[in-house]
């Protein structure tokens, strides 16, 4: 499975269909490139990646999510290279039997991608010198009632 792409990500193509007939819920997260960060005006950004490790780590994250929650299907696609404002940077969708598992797993998957997948973001600003960005740390795995 390829979870990393250097091509533009289309939301329409990714959200079509439902793979598993036993799924009753699907939660989708779409991350876009924002025009500002930390008080600075963002013009564009560059995602650098360690591709083979990123693919492996995302597969590990999906496997862990499936082991924690009763989820049927997980889809992840992260774009790398040069991105402009409004571009889709990352897409995560989770199908589960019930909505609780789908919401919790989707949140955990994107948070853990931000923490453990070797992708780096360099932002280019209108009003400041460019810089590499550090992500915030991930929260504990939430319980699924």
């Amino acid at each position: 499975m390829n979870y990393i792409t250097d091509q533009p990500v289309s939301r329409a193509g990714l959200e079509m269909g439902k793979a598993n007939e036993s799924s009753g819920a699907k939660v989708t997260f779409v991350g876009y490139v924002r025009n500002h960060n930390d008080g600075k005006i963002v013009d564009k950004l560059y995602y650098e990646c360690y591709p083979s490790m990123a693919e492996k780590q995302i597969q590990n994250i999906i496997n862990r999510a499936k082991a924690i929650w009763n989820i049927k299907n997980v889809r992840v696609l992260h774009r790398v290279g040069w991105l402009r404002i409004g571009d889709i940077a990352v897409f995560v969708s989770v199908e589960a039997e019930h909505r609780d598992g789908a919401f919790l797993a989707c949140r955990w998957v994107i948070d853990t991608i931000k923490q453990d997948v070797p992708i780096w973001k360099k932002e280019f600003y209108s009003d400041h010198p460019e810089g590499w960005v550090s992500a915030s740390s991930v929260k504990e795995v939430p319980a699924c009632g």
Partner: protein
Amino acid sequence: MRIQILLFAQLREAVGYEQKTIEASNGETVGSVARRFFDSNLAGFLNLPVRFALNEDFVAEETLLKDGDRLAIIPPVAGG
């Protein structure tokens, strides 16, 4: 033994290359090789909270290296 060091983001920019093969002694750990590399090449980044990966998995500093390992130095990530 020979270890391939992989560099990314601000560390790659600072040294000007993506990878370098270095000589290490038998019994050396990830942490000892990384410290030597930082002292020689990345002295300005000693306070950067880096992690390490061997052959594409995160490892602890105490992990023993073996000949031919690929040691990635992982600065703070920011995907998503």
